[in-house]
């Protein structure tokens, strides 16, 4: 996309710190010549709102005005407020325009920076922006995701250089352990501990896997990070490989993310060209190659043993643990699997140090977390906050609260293995332990807000239907249990259930939770258990009164079994 003038002879192969600095300096010099840099978000959500047309239109207008020397138009990343797509950011003036159309290009190019266009202007001092703490998304989408030079210019690959040339692998493991980083895929297992186990394994062949399956419906944080900062994720994986002694990595991306796959493949080629991936990285003896593997639309492949089975070319069937992948994983070799966001945190931890990372968050949950805020909240999109931030702040300050005329009811976190948290607990700080104590789960970061128009029994049924259809079928508790639980929930939403059905539902929840083979089955009862804990009155209304308080299963006040015609 960028056909504007490039400075001097280009450094390609990075063999030393000087080479890296030269690329950074050349890029900074190149960018400094422009008075304005206009970023058009080219993430999936903005592209679906025709941001591609906006990008083309802006580029054409700049050419027509003869402003190529002073105004650079670039594809950029997510600004966060996806509901107001397409988003355009102008730097260094820090102007954000929302809902931009191709026809607005002339106005944007021609308007002076101190007089933002009223109908398009988005206040970057609004709580949505100022109350976030951006670490993984620190570059705020102000990078062309396809240019490695831009990533290097903002400090990219310094962490890898530092790790390879000044630290022994054990020291890298120690730094990550001291930081307190926990797995961002959901379970929150201490990352340094996992790295240590794989590092200690004596096998000569080890693997690093990046779990980019992001199967939780309602979660798109990983998609955004992959699309916007692919080099950051690759750098994190490479540091991990060095730390544990791996020479081969796999990025397992769900097939529903074609743009993320494309960005990663572009990034892999660029990193190889610059000797930042492949053989003898930074002219050291360390080599690391990464391959992309596509998922196939199976939620269970987010579970690490099922994911491994998928990379091996089979159905995504989980296997009992132990042995854990850290000891025996891909093709029987020690394998480190971490989520996209976990990998994306690594470069900053190595660059700024473990103490810096550990100073953010709570005692047991360090750092920040990205969340995909969606559902019945005003400001939907991608956010990042320090762990320990309260749910109330996220939903009402950053999220702007629920729509006019509606009342907040619950926020669902943790995907199909998670739970719903009602208003009474909104002042709890978000961390791994408190969410669990509330009957929910951190999960990968999906956060769906529900208001009085949602029926909590219907929501529980939705999640159970999802789990039943995504069950791999290997173990009976999950394969059969989820179907039975769904049948009972269906009966309840149809007003045909009895107290005995409810008792059986509770019994099945217990059985499936404690006897399933993997996290899919173990987590499937959670939405039911959580809604029973906080919204039992809704279940009882369906069972005893045959009514749906939210007016979803039948219009409010009417008998679900015999609703009067409302066409």
């Amino acid at each position, binding site marked *: 996309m960028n056909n504007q003038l490039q400075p001097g002879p280009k450094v390609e192969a990075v063999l030393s710190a000087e080479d890296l600095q030269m690329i950074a300096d050349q890029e900074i010099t190149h960018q400094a010549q422009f008075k304005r840099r206009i970023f058009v978000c080219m993430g999936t959500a903005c592209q679906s709102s025709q941001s591609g047309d906006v990008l083309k239109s802006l580029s054409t207008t700049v050419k027509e005005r003869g402003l190529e020397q002073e105004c650079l138009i670039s594809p950029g990343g997510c600004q966060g407020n*996806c509901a107001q797509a397409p988003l355009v950011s102008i730097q260094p003036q820090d102007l954000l325009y929302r809902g931009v159309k191709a026809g607005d290009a002339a106005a944007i190019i021609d308007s002076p920076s101190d007089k933002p266009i009223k109908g398009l202007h988005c206040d970057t001092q609004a709580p949505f922006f100022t109350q976030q703490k951006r670490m993984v998304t620190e570059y705020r989408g102000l990078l062309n995701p396809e240019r490695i030079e831009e990533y290097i210019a903002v400090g990219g690959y310094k962490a890898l250089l530092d790790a390879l040339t000044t630290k022994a692998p054990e020291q890298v493991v120690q730094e990550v352990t001291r930081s307190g980083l926990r797995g961002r895929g959901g379970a929150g297992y201490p990352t340094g501990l996992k790295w240590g186990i794989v590092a200690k394994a004596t096998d000569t062949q080890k693997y690093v896997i990046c779990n980019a399956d992001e199967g939780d419906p309602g979660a798109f944080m990983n998609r955004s990070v992959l699309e916007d900062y692919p080099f950051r994720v690759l750098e994190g994986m490479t540091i991990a490989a060095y730390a544990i002694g791996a020479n081969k990595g796999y990025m397992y991306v769900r097939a*529903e993310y074609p743009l993320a796959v494309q960005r990663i493949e572009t990034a892999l080629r660029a990193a190889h060209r610059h000797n930042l991936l492949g053989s003898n990285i930074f002219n050291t003896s360390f080599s690391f190659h990464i391959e992309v593997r596509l998922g196939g639309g199976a939620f269970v492949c987010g579970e690490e043993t099922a994911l491994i089975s998928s990379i091996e070319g089979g159905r995504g069937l989980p296997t009992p643990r132990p042995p854990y992948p850290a000891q025996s994983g891909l093709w029987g070799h020690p394998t480190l699997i971490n989520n996209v966001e976990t990998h994306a945190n690594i470069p900053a931890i190595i660059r700024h140090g473990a103490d810096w990372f550990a100073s953010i968050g709570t005692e047991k949950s360090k750092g920040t977390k990205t969340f995909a805020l969606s*559902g019945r909240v005003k400001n939907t999109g991608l956010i990042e906050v320090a762990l320990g931030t309260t749910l109330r702040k996220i939903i009402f300050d950053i999220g702007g609260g629920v729509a006019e005329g509606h009342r907040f009811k619950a926020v669902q976190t943790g995907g199909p293995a998670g739970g719903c948290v009602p208003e009474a607990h909104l002042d709890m700080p978000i961390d791994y332990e408190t969410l669990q104590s509330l009957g929910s789960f951190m999960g990968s970061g999906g956060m769906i807000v529900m208001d009085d128009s949602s029926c909590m029994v219907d929501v529980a049924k939705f999640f159970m239907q999802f789990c039943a259809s995504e069950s791999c079928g290997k173990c009976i508790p999950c394969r059969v249990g989820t179907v039975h639980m769904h049948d009972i929930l269906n009966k309840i939403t149809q007003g045909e259930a009895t107290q005995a059905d409810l008792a059986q539902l509770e019994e099945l929840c217990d059985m499936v939770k404690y006897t399933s083979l993997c996290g899919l089955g173990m987590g499937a009862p959670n939405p039911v258990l959580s809604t029973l804990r906080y919204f039992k009155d809704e279940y009882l209304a369906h069972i005893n009164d045959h009514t749906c308080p939210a007016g979803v299963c039948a219009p409010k006040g009417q008998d679900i079994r015999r609703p009067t015609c409302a066409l």
Partner: protein
Amino acid sequence: MISPPQTKLPSLVPAPSADKRWHLVSATMRRHGYKPGALIETLHTVQNAFGYLDEPSLIHVARSLRVSLSKAYGVATFYNIFRLKPQGLHTCVACLGTACYIKGAPKLLAAVELCAHIRPTETTPDNKVSLEIARCLGACGIAPVAVFDGQVVGNVTPVEIEKRIRQWLER
């Protein structure tokens, strides 16, 4: 399930036809060294090239990668993304992720059923329109979302989805 990667290339199995698209499939298998682990990647290539996985293509891939036909069939039917039947001329994928569900995705499916008389995984009798669902497309900020012939569209209303489906049906 643990089998070490193959180190010897098998003798190549001829493609089911002279169709040039089979070169793409061979390229994928070759890139992965004709190992059994290439199965899913290869099936993706076949589907992207031909639109779906028919029996001759499954047999060809299974033989080329030295995996049993039952395994290839098991993988093809396990993953939701693979289709064993041809799609219609146009495909609409409705997202049924949590945010889309909360924002009214069931009404979109109902609108399609009303105007085209098809449910998810079905194709209209005239072969013009296929309806699929996706568990989450990761565009929750603009829910509810649908994909029309590969184009992601956000904030879809029942009126809009009906309009687009009718346009396809009338072509």
